[in-house]
C-alpha cells in the first residue's frame, strides 16, 4: 500500500479553490447526479459505503443519518470544522484548498437528510479557511448550486459559515450546537441526541469536514467504488496529519489499514536528526499513546488501533522521539485539558485541574511517589463520568502515559529531574493555580 490521492487528487492545483477550476476537475457533477436520486437512496449508498465519521469518534455516517425522525420536520446539517484537537490540521487544508468539495458534499448530504439549511462551524483561528469558504459559498450561490431550486430539482438549500471563538469544547457536537445557538459552548445532556433534538431543538446532523467531503466521492464511485481503499470495517481513505519529530511532517492521505510504521518511516521520512522513536500518539492528543514497539505493529484503521488500546481519532499522528521527556509531554496535555474543560461536569472540571496540578508538582520537584498512582486513580474516575468525552480525552492519555512510561515518572519524583534530559523542568513558568 502506498499514499493515495483520492480526496486530495487536485489539491496541488491553486485553481481548485475557485469554482471554475473546481468544475473543470469534475466539480458539481455529483451534485446533479445526487439531486436526481431519492434521498433514501443516497443514505443507503452512504450506509453501504461504510463511511465512518472522520472527526474522532468514527461513528458510521449512514447510520447516524438514519436516526433522524422520518417526518417533514425542519432539520439542520452542521459541518464541524472546529478542528481543535491538538495535532490535527487536515480540515484546514481541505477548507483552504478545496472549499467547493466540502460545499458540494454538504449540499448532497443536506439533500439526503432533507435539510434546507446548513452551517459550517469553523474554528475562530482559521482565518484563511473562513475567507475561502465565504468566497466559495458566494460563488456557489451565484452559480445556482445554493439557494432556491438548486439545478431545477426543486430542492432549496442555504449555507452559512459560523466563526467559533476558539474553544476546544465547541468541537464536541452538542457543545458546537450550544455555541451556534448563542449559548455558552457547553455540551448538552444526551439523550435527547442531536439527531432527535439538536440545533434550536430541531433534528440535527453534525458531521466532520472530511466526512461530508467524502460523500461526493461515494456518489461518484458508488459504495463499492469507495470501498476500493481501506479494510472491510474501515472503508475508504483518510487524511492523516503527521507532526512531531519526523523529517517530513504534513497531511498525508492513505487508505485505512496503512501501517503506522510506513507512515512514519516512508511518508514522514523517518525520525528527525537520526533519533530513535519513543512513542506515537496516533489519533490526536486524546488518544492513548503507543510505545515504539506497539507503533511498529499498528495499522491505521479503527479496529487495529482499538485493539492496540488506542484510537484513530481525528487522524493526528504525533511522533515523539527519545530525546523528549514524557512527564513534560504529559504536562503539556494536562495543561491543555485543564484550560479547555468547560466546567460543567464536576469530575472533568475538578479532575483536569487536579491532574494538571499533580503533574506540575512532579515537574517542580515536589512530587510524591503516591502521586503517580493518584494520577491514574483520578484519571480512572474522570473517565466515562461526564456529559461529553472531554474528560475521557483528558484521562486516557494520562493513564497510558503513566502506565507505559512509569519509570520516567518515578525517576522525576525521586530525582527531581528528567530521566531523558537529565535536567530539571525549565518549561514556561506558568503556575498551575493561576487563573487564566
Amino acid at each position, binding site marked *: 500500500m502506498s499514499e493515495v490521492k483520492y480526496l486530495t487528487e487536485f489539491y496541488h492545483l491553486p485553481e481548485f479553490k475557485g469554482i471554475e477550476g473546481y468544475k473543470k476537475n469534475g466539480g458539481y457533477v455529483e451534485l446533479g447526479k445526487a439531486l436526481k436520486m431519492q434521498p433514501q437512496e443516497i443514505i443507503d449508498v452512504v450506509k453501504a459505503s461504510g463511511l465512518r465519521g472522520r472527526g474522532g469518534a468514527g461513528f458510521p455516517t449512514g447510520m447516524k443519518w438514519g436516526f433522524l425522525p422520518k417526518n417533514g420536520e425542519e432539520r439542520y446539517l452542521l459541518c464541524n470544522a472546529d478542528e481543535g484537537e491538538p495535532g490535527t490540521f487536515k480540515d484546514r487544508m481541505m477548507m483552504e484548498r478545496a472549499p467547493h468539495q466540502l460545499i458540494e458534499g454538504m449540499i448532497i448530504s443536506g439533500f439526503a437528510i432533507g435539510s434546507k439549511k446548513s452551517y459550517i462551524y469553523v474554528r475562530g483561528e482559521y482565518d484563511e479557511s473562513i475567507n475561502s469558504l465565504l468566497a466559495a459559498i458566494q460563488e456557489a450561490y451565484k452559480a445556482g448550486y445554493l439557494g432556491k431550486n438548486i439545478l431545477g430539482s426543486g430542492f432549496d438549500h442555504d449555507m452559512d459559515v459560523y466563526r467559533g471563538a476558539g474553544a476546544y469544547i465547541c468541537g464536541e457536537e452538542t457543545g458546537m450546537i450550544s455555541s451556534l445557538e448563542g449559548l455558552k459552548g457547553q455540551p448538552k445532556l444526551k*439523550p435527547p441526541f442531536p439527531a432527535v433534538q439538536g440545533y434550536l431543538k430541531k433534528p440535527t446532523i453534525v458531521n466532520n469536514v472530511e466526512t461530508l467531503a467524502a460523500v461526493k466521492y461515494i456518489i461518484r464511485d458508488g459504495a463499492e467504488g469507495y470501498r476500493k481503499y481501506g479494510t472491510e470495517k474501515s472503508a475508504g481513505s483518510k487524511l492523516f496529519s503527521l507532526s512531531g519529530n519526523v523529517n517530513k511532517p504534513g497531511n498525508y492521505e492513505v487508505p485505512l489499514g496503512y501501517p503506522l510504521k510506513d507512515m512514519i518511516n516512508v511518508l514522514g521520512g523517518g525520525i528527525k536528526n537520526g533519533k530513535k522513536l519513543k512513542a506515537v500518539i496516533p489519533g490526536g492528543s486524546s488518544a492513548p499513546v503507543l510505545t515504539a514497539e506497539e507503533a511498529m505493529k499498528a495499522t491505521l484503521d479503527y479496529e487495529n488501533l482499538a485493539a492496540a488500546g488506542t484510537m484513530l481519532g481525528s487522524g493526528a499522528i504525533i511522533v515523539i522521539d527519545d530525546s523528549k521527556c514524557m512527564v513534560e509531554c504529559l504536562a503539556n496535555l494536562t495543561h491543555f485539558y485543564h484550560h*479547555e474543560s468547560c*466546567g460543567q461536569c*464536576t*469530575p472533568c472540571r475538578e*479532575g483536569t485541574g487536579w491532574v494538571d496540578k*499533580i503533574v506540575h508538582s512532579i515537574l517542580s520537584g515536589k512530587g510524591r511517589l503516591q502521586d503517580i498512582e493518584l494520577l491514574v486513580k483520578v484519571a480512572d474516575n474522570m473517565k466515562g463520568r*461526564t456529559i461529553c468525552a472531554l474528560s475521557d480525552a483528558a484521562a486516557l492519555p494520562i493513564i497510558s502515559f503513566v502506565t507505559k512510561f512509569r519509570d520516567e515518572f518515578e525517576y522525576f519524583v525521586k530525582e527531581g529531574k528528567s530521566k531523558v534530559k537529565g535536567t530539571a523542568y525549565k518549561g514556561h513558568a506558568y503556575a498551575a493555580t493561576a487563573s487564566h
Partner: protein
Amino acid sequence: MQQQPLINCTINGVALQVKAGTTIIEAMYENSQKIAHYCWHPGLSIAGVCRLCMVEIEGNPRLQIACNTVVTEGMKVNNTSEKVKDAAKWGLDFHLINHPLDCPICDQAGECGLQEQYMEFGKYNSEMAEKKQKKHKVVDLGPTVVLDSERCILCSRCVRFTDEVSKTHELGIFNRGDHAEIGTHAGKPLDNKYSLNTVDICPVGALTSKDFRFRQRVWFLKDQETVCNGCSTGCNVKVYFNKEGVFRVKPKRNDAINGHWMCDEGRDIYKFVNKEHRMIKGHKLANGVWNTELHAGAAAKDAALSLQGVTGNDIALVVTGQHTVEELEAIVSTFVNTYKTKNVYHWWNSEATASEFDGILLRGDKNPNTKGLQQVFAKHGITTKFSDLDPSKVKHLVVVGPENVPVYKDFTAKLEFFAKASNLIYMTAAKVDSLVANKNLAVGGKTATIIPLKTFVEKAGTFVNHAGVSQTFKKVTTVVSEALTLVEAAALLAGQEIKVETLNPKNLLVAANERADKVTLDFRKKNEFIFQRGKL
C-alpha cells in the same frame, strides 16, 4: 381519566411500579431510597452536571446518571454496589478538592448538602496535596443575596431557577473549567421577587441570604410548618425559631399551592412576629392617662366591662383578613350573639389590588384569609360596607387590627379614623405606638383599651386562600406568652372566663404509677433536639 400504564422495574432489589417517563432518581425518591445528588431538583430542569447520582443498570457496563435516565420496562437498577459507592465517593472528592474548609464560618453548615453527602457517602481523607483554587469571596449579588464562589460547586441550580422559574435570567456561569464562577451581568444585580429561593436551593453555602447571614447557626434553630400570612396565595412554609425568637422562613413543598418556592416578601413575615415589634402589655386609657402595664387578660376584662349592656348601633366591630377562620368566627359570633349587632366591618387594605397576580406566586391581596372572612360574614348574614363605618357615631368601636402592619399602607390614617370613637378597643399583635401617642384620644374623656394578640405562628388555625383552599396549620412557638388569641379575647369580651390549658397529670410524661424520675426513651428522643430539614 385514562389510567397511565405503569412500568415495572427493580431498584436495589425492590420491585416497583412507576409511571411512564419517570426518571430513576424520581422513582428512588418516591420510594424513599437514598441517592447522592446535587444538581437535580424536582422543581427545575435536569442539568446532569454533578455526576453524583450514578447508578448501575443491569446490562449496561457504564454507570449512568439517575437523573437523566428514564425507567424502562424490566430495568434493574442498583446504587448500593461497590462500583457505585466508589463512583459517589470520587464524585464527592471532585466536589471537595477545591471546596474551602470554612465550615465553621459558613452559614450553611448544619444543613449543607456537601456535609450530608460526605457523612452518607464519603468519609475519606482527601488525597489532594496541591493548593486549592482561589475565587472571589463575599460577592454582593444583589440586595438580598451574597455569593461565595469558592464554596460554589457549580450545580447551576440557581442559574436554572432564574432562567426557568423567575424568568429573570440574572445569573450565569462565567469562565471555564475550574475557574468558572457564578455571577451576574454588569448592571443587572440579582434583584427579583423570588431571589431568596436561590439561597434555599443552593446545596452548599455559596449563596447566603443577607437577612439571615450570621444571625444564628442552623443547629440552634427548630422548625415547624405553617402557612405564610403574607398574601392570599397561602404558601406552605417552614418557620425556623428558637427561644430568642423567629429567625427565618423557608418554603415547604406543596405542589397544589406553591410548588417548591415562595416570594421574598413572604420571607419577611417573621419580622413582625418577634418581640421587638410586638404589643406585649395591655394598655388602658382612662382620664387622659395611659396605663401601659396591664396584663392582656385584665385589659380584655376591662374592655368587656366597658361594653356591658351595649347593644345594637352603639357598637361596631372592625376585622381584617389577617386572622384565622376560627378566630373570626369567635369574635363575629360574640358580636352577633352577645352584643346583638351586625355592625361588623371588613377592613380590607388591598381591595383594589386584590385580583393582581404576578404569574408565579405573589398576589395583590396581602391578607391570608380574606376568603375565610367572607365565608364567616356570609354565615352570619353580614353585608356591611367599610365605607359606611363612622366611628364618631358608634360609641364603642372594637377593632381587630392587622399583625402584618407594613402591608397596610394607610395604617396610621386609619388609626386616626378609629380614634374618633369614644370608646376604642383595639386588639393587635403589632406594636402601635402611634395609637398610644395619639393626642386625639387623650382628650374629651375618651377611653381606649389595647389588647395584645398572638400572631399566626403562636396559634393553630385555618386560612382560606384565594382559591378557596382551606389550610389548617399548627402552632409553631410562643413569642409573647401573655398575649391572647382572638378566640380567647372574644370569650373575655363576651364576659366568659377563659382557662389556662393545663396538662392532665395522667397525660403527663411521667405516668402516676411510675417512678417520678423515670423517663422513657421515647420521650428522650422527642426531647432531644432533632433538626428537621427538608430534602435537598
